[in-house]
Structures are given as C-alpha cells and as structure tokens.
C-alpha cells in the first residue's frame, strides 16, 4: 500500500562533512549525558539516582560509559570507562601512567634481543633484568630456558621523586619505544594509578565549562575555597589484553571516590584516552545514547558485548 524506500533512513546518520560536529567530542558527549540526566531525573527528584550513559559505536567495537550523579542538584561525572577492541597499541601505551604489570606467555630471553636489538643482562640470582624503567622477571623453564613471566614498571619511584603527584598523574609518560616493543608481546597488561584530590594531588578548580554557571555562582556565594581538599581519590585502571597475535583490546576506567564528582582538570586526561577511539563514534552513536541504571545496562549484556 505505501511505497516508501526505507533504505533512505540510513542517510540520516551519514558522516557529516563541512561542519565540525562538536557534539562528538568528549565534552559534547558528557554535556549531552548531563542534559538528559537533568531533564529526566533532576526535575523530578531532589537527589538524582546514579545513572550510566552508554555510548556504543555503530560497529560495536568501542564503548564509552559515563557514570552520572547529582551533586547540588546538578549532574556530575563520577566515572568514565572506555572499552574498545583492536586498538592502536603503541598509542595507548604512550598514554598510560602508573604501576604497570604485564603478563607474558612464552616470551624467551633470546626473543628480547630480536625485539629490541639488544642483549639482556640477566641476573641469575633473582631472574631479573631491567630495560629502562621496565623490570622483567623470568622463571626458568626446563624446556624453553628462561621465559619472561611478568614485567613491572613503577613510574617515578626514583627519578621522579621530586615531581608532584599531579604531574605524574597527568603529564609524565614513562614508557618508551623499546618498552612498547617488549610489552606488545604481553598477553595482559594492567596499569593502575591513583591520586588524592586536593593537597599535593589534583586541585579541585572552580567549575567552568561543562558545569553550569549556576554552580560557579553557588560556590562563590558559599565562600568556595579552591584549595580546600574535598577528600577522595581519583583512580585509574587500564587493562590491555591480546586475544590474538597483534590485536589488542582496551578497558580503561577512571573514577573518583569523593561525592563531588571529577574535577575539571582531569578533562584533558580523559580526552587523551577518548582520542584513541573517538573516530569510531558517529552521529548515530551520539543520538542513540542510553542513560540507564548501571545494573540495567549490565543485565542486558550490552556492556559485555565488547
């Protein structure tokens, strides 16, 4: 009865050229989640419940998850998670900070020379060698001699003791190219990082940008002290796995333990990680965002698809 060409619907979400689609930036996506949260929850409830904004790329290769709470009747971000498959390993490794532990399956000492072109000086006493800041631990294997079991990298323990934790957290890149080559053989890498809010850690700046002007006004009126520590810790946990040779998956999560939400100064750090997958998100991803109870998203299995 109706003659309608339904294939034309897809044109709505074709890649838009000619104008920058600002909404697809991380800030745009956070803003969008905040706006939805405000509309749906903050008008009806004095204290909005925690909700998770769920952005999935069209090809289901990347997810961005944002945990939103209400703080002073305004939305605030308490956690961000990026999950992606088949990432650019080198680029992601250069963005990692903190304590690194890598697990290997079958990497022999003799292979290291092939990888980085240098002999390794193995300490027979404790089966340990150091390449840059990377400490490699071996276990003797009767069949294959010395096999690398795990690698540990603890950034800033020696050389960077004078640096402030904030600098370590936000700016220091400890992993160089030779380490990346070795770590690319790892089956699993875990990097954890944490920083107290306030004090020597991250100062909680007067909110701007993604929070509303009202919030700034509120804080000014209430003698807001930007140096006052609100307490809490920012924690960062990155997991990289290699499900098949040369393919790496990322699970990056950053969250704050205070009730205040994340400080604005963390945004560049978040954007650094988001840039690894941002090209996978499209207008369709953006428009199709879900804002739901975290359990609801988990129960539906959507989070586990990647």
């Amino acid at each position: 009865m109706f003659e309608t060409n339904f294939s034309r619907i897809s044109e709505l979400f074709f890649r838009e050229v000619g104008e920058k689609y600002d909404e697809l930036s991380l800030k745009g996506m956070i803003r969008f989640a905040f706006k939805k949260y405000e509309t749906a929850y903050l008008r009806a409830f004095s204290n909005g419940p925690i909700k998770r904004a769920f952005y999935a790329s069209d090809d289901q290769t990347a997810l961005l998850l944002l945990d939103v709470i209400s703080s002073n009747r305004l939305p605030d971000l308490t956690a961000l998670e990026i999950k992606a498959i088949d990432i650019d390993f080198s680029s992601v490794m250069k963005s990692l900070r903190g304590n690194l532990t890598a697990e290997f399956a079958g990497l022999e000492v003799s292979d290291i020379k092939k990888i980085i072109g240098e002999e390794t000086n193995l300490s027979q006493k404790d089966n340990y060698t150091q390449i840059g800041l990377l400490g490699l631990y071996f276990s003797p294997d009767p069949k294959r001699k010395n096999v690398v079991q795990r690698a540990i990298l603890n950034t800033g323990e020696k050389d960077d003791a004078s640096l402030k934790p904030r600098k370590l957290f936000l700016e220091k890149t400890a992993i160089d190219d030779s380490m990346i080559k070795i770590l690319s053989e790892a089956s699993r890498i875990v990097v954890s990082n944490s920083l107290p809010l306030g004090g020597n850690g991250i100062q909680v700046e007067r909110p701007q940008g993604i929070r509303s002007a009202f919030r700034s006004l509120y804080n000014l009126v209430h003698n807001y002290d930007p140096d006052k520590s609100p307490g809490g810790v920012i924690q960062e946990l990155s997991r990289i796995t290699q499900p098949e040779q040369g393919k790496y998956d990322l699970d990056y999560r950053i969250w704050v333990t205070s009730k205040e939400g994340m400080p604005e100064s963390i945004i560049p750090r978040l954007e650094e990680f988001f840039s690894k997958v941002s090209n996978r998100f499209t207008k369709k991803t953006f428009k199709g965002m879900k804002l739901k109870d975290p359990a609801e998203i988990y129960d539906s299995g959507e989070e586990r698809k990647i």
Partner: protein
Amino acid sequence: MSIRKDVVKKAHLLNRILHENSEQYFHSRPMASSRSAIVIPEKKEKHLFNVSYDIKDLLSIAALTQSSVLMTGGTDTGKTTLARLAMNGLLGKEEEGWHRIDVDNDFGKDAYTDVNFGVIVDGKKQSDGLIQASPYLFLPGLIADEINRAHPSIINKLLHIMDKDISLPNGERVKIGCSVGGIKYQFQIAAINEGADYSGTFGIDRALRRRTIIEIPMDIFPPTPFDRLCVQKYGRKETVLKNSKSNIEDIVDIYKEIESNLKLHTVAEMFTNYLAAFDFCSYSLSGEKGAVQSKNGSVRHICAGKPIQIGDLPTGDEGDGGIGCFFLRTFENELCPYVRGISSGITKNLIAVSRGFALLRATKFVELADGVVNGENKKALSYSINNPDEFRASLKSYVGMPVEGRDLVNAAVDKYITNLEVELCDVESALGFVGYSKLGISDPWVLKYYQGNRYEAVRNFSRVARDKFEEGLARTELANLEAVLSGQGSPNDIDNIRKYCNKENPWLWRVLEPYVQNREINSEKDSIDAIYGS
C-alpha cells in the same frame, strides 16, 4: 519521477522578480534557516551547507504552493505594503492581477456580489445570473486587509472567501479564483493588527485563522538596524507598484509540478508523522490527548499520580518508579502535556509548504554551486558554507565526474534538481509558520518558558521532537529497522522495537506501526489470494 529543471529555473526567476519588485521594502532578517546537505551515498557522507530564507522568500513559497498567508503584528510593520509589492511582482497590476479588500463593519454580501442588470434587460430569469460574484474574486491574487476590524459575525462571510468557496445570496455556490491550466488558483494574503494594544479590533476567529496556511508574526521578525538605516536613506512615502506583467501561468505551472512530482524523503515523511504522534498520551483513557479535557490548553493535570485503569487494560506506563508519568520527564520543560500533535489538516498544509521550501532550497543550491566555483562561501539570505575548497571536492564526488568550473556547476545542479525531495530541514523550516497558532500549545506554558513567543516555542518543539526522533532511529534496538519495515524482520526484531518504543519513545511506535500494519495487510491479502486462487 523528479521535478523538471525548467520549473526550478522559473521559481528562481519569479523569486528574483518578487525580490526586485519589493526592494522598497527593507527587511533583511532571516525568517528561517536550515542545514541541508549534498548526499554522497557511495561514501556514506553528506556535505552540509546552510540555507536561509527571508520574508520575501516566504511569500514566494506561499504563492508557489498556493498557501494563503496571514500577516500579524502592529501597525507600521509594513504588512500591507509588502503584500501589495509581492502581489504586484508576481501578478502584475492591481485590479488586473489582484485586488485588495478592506474588511470593516460594512463588509457584507454587497462587498463580494454584483447585480448583473443585463439579465433583466435580456429578459432572462433572475436565476440566470442576476446576482453574481464580484469579478475581483476571480483574480489570481487577493489581499484582505485588517480582517479583524470587522465584527466577528461579518467574519463568517470572509471565512468562505478564504475557503475559496462562497454561496451567493441566491444560493448559488461559486468557486473563486482564477482558472489557469485546468485548476483554480488564488493567492491570498490577509493582514491583521493583533494584540490588546489595538482598540476597535476583534480577536480573529479561530476558524478564520485555520483557513490561512502560513502565518507570519511580523513583531517577532522586526527590521534590523541595517533595514532601519535603509528606510531612513532610501525609504519612499508612496509605494510604487512597478510591475505590469502577470506571471500567473508560470506560478500555476510550478504549483502543479511540485504538487505532483516533489516527493517526501523517507525521513521527512516519518518525521512529519512523528510530529503528529504527539497527540499520544500514556495516561489518557483513549491514548490521545484530544480525548482529555484540557485546562489552559494542557493536559498536565492528569500526568501526576497513577493513571486511571479501566478493567484489565494495560495503561502503557512502564516508567521507572518515578512520580507520575515517565514521559513527563522525557523532554525539557515538561513539554509533553503542553503540546499536541499536528492534525491531519496541518500535516497536509505542512507538506505543501515544505515543498515550497524544498523548491527554494534548490534555487539557493544553484546560487551556492555557482558561488563555490567563484570562491564565494557566503551569500546573505541565501547560503553559507564553511570551506569552499572542501565543498568543491565534495561536489566532484557528488557528481561522480572529473569536471571543473562551469561544467561542475551544471552537473551538480542537474543532479541536485533530479534528486530533489522534501527533506526534514524543509519540514522544520515550514513548521514555524504553518504551526504558529495551529499547533496546540498551551499559552501559559509558552508565556512561562518562551516569553510568550509562540514561534520560538514551535521551533523548540520541532527541535526536541527531532532529537527524540533521531535518538529512536539511532538506537541499537532498531538496528534491523529497514528489514522490519520492508517485511523481512523477525518477530523478535519487531518485539525489540516495540519494547523500546513502549518504554522510552511511544511517539516513534506511532510512526512505525502503520508501516508494520501495511506489511501485515499486504501479507493478509496474499494469503486470501492463496486460499481463493488469484
């Protein structure tokens, strides 16, 4: 079937004539602007460009779609002047191409009937035409000025004129308008002083307002400082009607062509239905806002608490345990109960006017393509692009040929016109003027959130509706939508879509359901054929 290229050219020329003829009227404030695009399906890309329309474009659109115009606003906004200049530009001399009637308390049957004494002289019966409609009613243009200066009882007469169907005192019915190309055509412009500041006026009858298709609230689009300076320097006391040539045949040709051959893009078709779906009410006993007694133009009073349940009928409310209707929290400013969906009549008019916007968009694209070749990335009240070099590259991809310069412009224009359809952006542009007073929006709500500016309220409704519409189509639950609507989806696919819609986007289900039903009706017919044999 696509629209003829010469029709777009004629529309371009007519619009230019209207603009030139009304250059004494200074008004450079954009009335509508939209983002359109050239679509390159092979690359799954679209290159955006901006289009804007001025008040004279709007009158061209009205004339080319035979949509009557109601201009409202205070005195001294130039409503009558503009109406006369537009009529003159398009239809030539007054009394030859158009007529202006002043509506006041003396307006009655004498104003639109004539006595033909020749009937008596010839010895014929009175029924043979003693009383006939005034000749001006058969002109292609009509201006009805100050229509709210007449008493409401007199307005009834005008109602029929706006309907283009009047009955004479002898009971004879007459279709008014000019017969051209096998159709009756009349372009009507009505003007009123509206508001509490105007003594001696009456509130315009709602039925009369509904007879007009495009409303232009002049007070919302005041002249710019540039316009005021132009008036000061070049403004004339007398309006000079320069044109003596009628373009009625071209206008009718364009009107007929776009009515028959300018189709709606699938997304525009669905979005128009989405706007109509806003009559849905989860708490209404009938599922429609129309069935609920409204208070101050809204049904907000039924959104709180629990829905009334009759028998075992499900209410459709699947909120997440909040207070009252979940959909109350779907849009900003609790929009849902304060806005009604567009009616079938408005939908019809909206599509007609959207066709006009699409046609003029094509003429602006022609200017854009030409401008890009000459390195002009912006033309006031026409088009703008951000990066001419990038756009030129996209144009080449669009035409799919390695051509440059004039050849590129010609190829791009040909393709654009061949593929011209009414797009979502055209519907959005048209809605502000077609739905201005006809869209059911609560006045107190407009006053509270939009300073009483209905135009902005309608535009914002269109924006949030579009956001929700796009959200629905982007959701993973609708990943197999094309297959479902084409009759190739699984019951599980339909179920997923229905679940999402029931819970978060019931308006979308009202758009999709008819297509699914269409599939079901067709399959039912097939099975009957199978039983009886075809």
